């Protein structure tokens, strides 16, 4: 609302934050245009939460510059706070208050009038499927309901920039799916949203743009497709029937693909890079038929963000020890 539309909604330049000897952020850069959903993706301890805490004025950086909605996160901290919403790693709701009381309290603290806070609270309870539980203390809520209430609280003053720190961590699959729906709905409102996640699937599903963070730095930025393209395009993967001639199989597949065929004798897998693999599949299957080779499985596999992470960092995303500082 106050931010110029040409200015980035979220900006970090060379952010540094130290905790003792560890550098949680070590020259962290980020630029998010208004209306973008940005997924900040990284393993535990990569610095995601530290970055969110600096953007939301909970921490002051040791070096570099951070801005949200055109306001400096240190100098203009107070003005900035009316422009942001934060939903944290754990649902920050008052368990002894009812859902409705929680929302009205946060609304009042955002400087809404009593009447506005009340009507916004009712709208959000409705929108987040909490109307029936509105007058029950939040301690009786399920984990998924608490997260929804927490998210609703961050939206009560309709701030233009939202920060969701691991919004689905610890939720069961149905709770996660329901959070995903809510987050997807926010898009329509044109809000700028930064969400952190260690789930590759989640960033892929929710985010327009993904920034990969490791050891306190952004190591890649792009759409999910762009990042996947860095890893290489699609691959055709075949599994031959037991007892098949694997060498003949490799020979048969080679003319249809863009690179060398990889053969795994043990699992009877053939795999090779092939752009627009799906279009070529019919020909592949016909030739295998003609060669008398029986196929157990045929697939065109697109690289996942797991592959991206592995390529960028040399290790898988979710194996690193949990040491998130702050």
């Amino acid at each position, binding site marked *: 609302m106050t931010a110029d539309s040409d200015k980035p909604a979220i900006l970090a330049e060379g952010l540094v934050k130290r905790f003792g000897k560890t550098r949680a952020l070590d020259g962290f850069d980020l630029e998010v245009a208004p209306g973008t959903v940005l997924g900040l993706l990284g393993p535990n301890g990569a610095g995601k939460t530290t970055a969110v805490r600096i953007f939301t004025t909970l921490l002051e950086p040791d070096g570099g510059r951070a801005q949200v909605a055109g306001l400096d996160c240190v100098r203009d901290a107070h003005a900035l*706070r009316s422009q942001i919403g934060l939903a*944290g790693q754990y649902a920050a709701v008052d368990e002894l208050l009812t859902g409705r009381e929680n929302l009205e309290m946060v609304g009042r603290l955002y400087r809404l009038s009593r009447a506005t806070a009340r009507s916004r609270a009712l709208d959000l309870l409705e929108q987040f499927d909490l109307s029936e539980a509105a007058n029950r203390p939040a301690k009786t809520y399920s984990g998924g309901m608490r997260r929804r209430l927490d998210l609703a609280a961050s939206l009560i003053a309709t701030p233009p920039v939202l920060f969701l720190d691991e919004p689905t961590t610890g939720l069961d699959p149905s709770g996660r799916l329901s959070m995903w729906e809510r987050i997807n709905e926010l898009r329509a409102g044109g809000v700028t949203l930064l969400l952190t996640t260690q789930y590759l699937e989640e960033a892929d599903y929710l985010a327009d743009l993904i920034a990969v963070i490791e050891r306190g730095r952004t190591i890649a930025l792009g759409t999910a497709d762009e990042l996947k393209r860095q890893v290489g395009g699609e691959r055709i993967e075949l599994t031959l029937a037991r007892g098949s001639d694997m060498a003949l199989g490799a020979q048969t597949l080679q003319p249809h693909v863009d690179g060398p065929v990889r053969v795994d004798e043990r699992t009877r897998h053939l795999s090779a890079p092939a752009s627009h693999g799906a279009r070529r599949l019919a020909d592949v299957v016909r030739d295998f038929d003609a060669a008398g080779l029986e196929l157990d499985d045929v697939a065109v596999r697109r690289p996942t963000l797991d592959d991206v992470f592995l390529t960028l960092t040399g290790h898988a995303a979710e194996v690193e020890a949990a040491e998130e500082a*702050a």
Partner: protein
Amino acid sequence: MSTQGVSEADAHGWLYWQVSDAIVLTGRALRHIPRSPEILVYSTIQPVMFVVLFRYVLGGAIKLPPGVSYVNYLMAGIFVNTVAFGSFTTGVGLAEDLQKGLIDRFRSLPMSRAAVLIGRTLSDLVRNVFTGAVMFAVGLLVGFDPHGGALEIAAAVGLLLLLGFAFSWIGATVGLAVRNVEAVQSAGFIWLFPLIFASSAFVPTATMPAGLRAFANNQPITQIVDASRSWFLGTPVHSHGWIAVVWCVGIIALFVPLSVRVYRHAASKS
């Protein structure tokens, strides 16, 4: 998000919002009182046990100046003990808010930096009124017989509530600095226990060794106990009254800014 700009921040001045935030958060903390009755029960059990312990077990062996019954001597100490230990509740409440991430949420909002603390300390003042009333009734049951006039008893009650409020700010500072519920309770014992027992709360200081007696006679708890005891019993207060008030006001003047400072940098990590 079509309703942006619903904030009314500009319609009122700075002071209006400081007061509004404090009211909102005091209302929040007051709602906690009936919804967590176990805290009320716990905060009255210890003083009731102390009444029984000192009135019936130890009291007979404690030598007093002539003319004062032990139960009349004891109750001021019990009241001070009750409201002083009530400051744990403030610290525990804030440590819980920190651990649950609520302080993070509050600190990310465009609100007063003191309101969360004011809410807790004011609601604990109300809690002290309640536990104090319970203890007064318990005192009457075991033979407490205050002779002071209405004004003097009001002064004693006022001083006790002022003490409770002042100590709540110490509890708030400790709670935010220690950040862990169990640690808050241990830390509370460390500073509070010596203050309560090395004082005139339960025994006259006259029989203490010289060094300890000098400490006991000059520390705030003794001044506050002596002042409220004299007011309850209608005996001369001497200088204890104003010294007690100065102590409480001094503690508030020191710990309000200190706790707000700790709050500003409070991190949720435990």
